[in-house]
């Protein structure tokens, strides 16, 4: 029997493909900016491109929650994403005020997504410690 159910396999495959797309697009956009120094609309369009696969991962998470047939596993995943959101938003808010009073340096806003993905790990650990893992 497979370690993952159908919804989990679909989620894993999508995240893998989007991560690969992110790396390729980021490399392409960095090269484009180095070689072409774009301006105006093309610069905005190119700069947004690497964000799209990350946005896609959030959408894939939403689809997974909709596809997951095992209610207990779905509940664990919802808890995990809530912990991740609370973690990322709390750190971003605290950092924002520290930055506002010139106590820390500026950090690019996309690091909130990095914090959120890190928060998924924290949520997974809390799930395991409190009610058990959702996966074999």
């Amino acid at each position, binding site marked *: 029997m497979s370690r993952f*159910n159908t919804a989990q396999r679909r989620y894993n495959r999508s995240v893998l493909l989007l991560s690969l797309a992110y790396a390729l697009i980021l490399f392409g956009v960095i090269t484009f900016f180095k070689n072409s120094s774009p301006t105006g609309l093309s610069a905005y369009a190119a700069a947004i491109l690497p964000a799209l696969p990350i946005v896609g991962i959030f959408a894939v998470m939403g689809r997974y929650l909709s596809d997951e*047939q*095992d*209610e*207990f*596993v779905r509940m664990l995943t919802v808890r995990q994403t809530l912990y991740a959101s609370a973690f990322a938003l709390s750190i971003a808010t605290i950092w924002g005020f520290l930055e506002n009073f010139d106590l820390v340096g500026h950090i690019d806003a996309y690091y909130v997504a990095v914090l959120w993905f890190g928060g998924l790990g924290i949520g997974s650990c809390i799930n395991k410690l409190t*009610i*058990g893992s*959702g996966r*074999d």
Partner: protein
Amino acid sequence: MENRLKVLRAERDWSQQDLAERLEVSRQSVNAIETGKYDPSLPLAFRISELFDRSIEDIFISPSSRSSKAI
């Protein structure tokens, strides 16, 4: 919520995996329900009761009935 799932499963000599496959849920779900860490939804509770051919009240122990007995 306390329940008799483990006893009913043992009577049939089913493993948690056997029960999980019959209910079409993960083994972790069965474990979480058996240990009272997770209360199943009403549709899943009905699936469990139909599988064991018992009423839901025969399988799941109402917290309110337990507290009233304690009084």
